[in-house]
């Protein structure tokens, strides 16, 4: 067995070998019958396992589990997502970082409008020594007393107390300058803070908690359990020319698990991977049709009609679809395409038939 690459075959199948090792493995496979046969056998086995049909749970199991969970809840054995878990999250490293980002975003959003306003009304906002130095006596003075006040002001300017006040005000003014965001900067600051918030939200989505939501929502087990859909865009139909499913394929997807599997297969090696479109499998299901690999561009796939009917006394559905081919002698892109279509349809308790149209 010395010299064979049997230990690398598993990673070779998964495409997980580093490039240099892969080159060596390929070179070895070219010459070694033993390893080539083993690779073929293991690839076939992986395919066999992959092709095992998914097993659906019995219809009453879901209800049975929900009932037992509710029973446990009533007996109080289940620790609810209470303020304790929220407190744990809040004081965790991530919790602190996200709270700080959110707080910064709030502060920025609050300060920026004030400073934009201050640009248009400089007299009101800009602190000046004369306006800040006013004493309560000056504030209450009438117009007739202005001359006297001017005199007293000039006297006060030379006094020690004023110099002390001036120094204090200078410090205040400096401090204000530090806080004030000039208008052009404010324009930059707004998207930056928005980006930070988005990042926080994305992080939240990854770890299953929507951090930019109020605590009451964070406490919701649903958000804590990672139900935020990867893509929240509402959709009815997704179609295109490129799919990871390379053979003709029709399927009715009725549950999230199958949806994830098929989407994963469809997305294939695409990078970045598009998010899983949201589907409420309580009321809807997804029709997926793929035309398989086509030799050129110009092919397309359309669902022309979805007809609800009856079959053997049960509701049924007929999905008519058409694979359009490019006209003969037309210019075609020399690229392999896999036309596909996903269509969101209302759920039915019956059989679905796929009928191709010519």
């Amino acid at each position, binding site marked *: 067995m010395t010299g064979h690459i*049997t230990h690398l*075959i*598993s*990673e070779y*199948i*998964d495409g*997980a070998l580093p490039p240099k090792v892969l080159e060596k493995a390929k070179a070895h496979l070219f010459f070694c019958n033993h390893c080539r046969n*083993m690779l073929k*056998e*293991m690839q076939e*086995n*992986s395919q*066999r*396992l*992959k092709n*095992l*049909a*998914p*097993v*659906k*749970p*019995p219809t009453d*199991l*879901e209800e*049975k*589990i*929900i009932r*037992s*969970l*509710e029973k*446990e*809840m009533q007996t109080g*054995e*289940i*620790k*609810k*997502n*209470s303020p*304790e*878990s929220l407190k744990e999250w809040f004081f*965790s490293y991530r919790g602190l970082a996200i709270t700080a980002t959110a707080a910064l975003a709030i502060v920025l959003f609050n300060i920026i409008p004030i400073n934009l306003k201050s640009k248009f009304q400089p007299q009101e906002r800009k602190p000046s020594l004369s306006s800040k130095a006013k004493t309560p006596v000056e504030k209450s003075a009438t117009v007739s007393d202005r001359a006297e006040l001017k005199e007293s002001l000039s006297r006060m300017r030379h006094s020690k107390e004023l110099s002390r006040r001036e120094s204090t005000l200078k410090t205040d003014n400096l401090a204000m300058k530090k806080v004030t965001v000039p208008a052009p900067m404010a324009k930059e600051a707004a998207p930056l803070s928005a980006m930070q918030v988005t990042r926080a939200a994305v992080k939240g989505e990854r*770890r*299953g908690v929507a951090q930019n939501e109020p605590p009451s929502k964070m406490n*919701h*087990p*649903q958000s*804590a*359990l*990672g*139900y935020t859909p990867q893509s929240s865009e509402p959709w009815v139909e997704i179609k295109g020319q490129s799919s990871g499913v390379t053979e003709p394929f029709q399927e009715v997807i009725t*549950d*999230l*698990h*199958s949806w*994830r*599997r098929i989407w*994963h297969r469809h997305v294939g090696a695409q990078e970045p991977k598009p998010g899983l479109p949201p589907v409420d*499998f*309580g009321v809807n299901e997804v029709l997926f049709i793929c035309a398989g690999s086509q030799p050129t561009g110009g092919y397309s796939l359309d669902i022309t009609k979805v007809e609800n009917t009856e079959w053997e006394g049960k509701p049924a559905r007929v999905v008519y679809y058409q694979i359009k081919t490019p006209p003969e002698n037309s210019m075609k892109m020399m690229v392999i395409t896999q036309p596909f279509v996903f269509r969101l349809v209302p759920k039915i308790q019956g*059989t679905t038939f796929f009928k191709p149209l010519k």
Partner: protein
Amino acid sequence: MADIWNEEAMAKMVREELPGVYNLCFRLSSNREDAEDLSQETFLKAIRAIHKFKGQSTLATWLYRIAVNTWKNKVRHQVRRKFKFHISLSGSAKESGDGDSPNRELNDGRPLPLEQLEKKEGDKKVIAALGNLEENEKAIIVLKDIDQKSYEEIAKVLNLNLGTVKSRLARAREKFRTKFALQRVKTR
């Protein structure tokens, strides 16, 4: 109000994750009854420990981890009692047939198309070979080749590092290859 909310969330979790969890449990335990018990136990354990779920992996991965650990514990417990928890499917065609029929609506007496019958026979051999593997080998093959999980997800589910996942998977696949070859010879 909070209670109603939690119950709704729990129901949603069960509705959305049950097919995946059940499929895994069925592939691990190889029969319907055990798969049902395992699924139920998995959700109960998950809900009891939901406050410990930190969101460092997806909920499905976390549930899979609970399911695999629960299954391993059961197998060990049964082995200690000198009773095998999972039954060999080579001898129980009925159960594997029920589970693996891709279109169970057709199991009403009408003959299945030839292709489906052939696939069913092939599936039985695959499942029988799978049943002859050790727990760890079986778990890793089910996760990788049936459930199509990535190395990283498997590492999280089985609480292993990536290197161990790769080496263990290589060994498990090699063993599956020999067991499957034997299975084919036996049934010829």
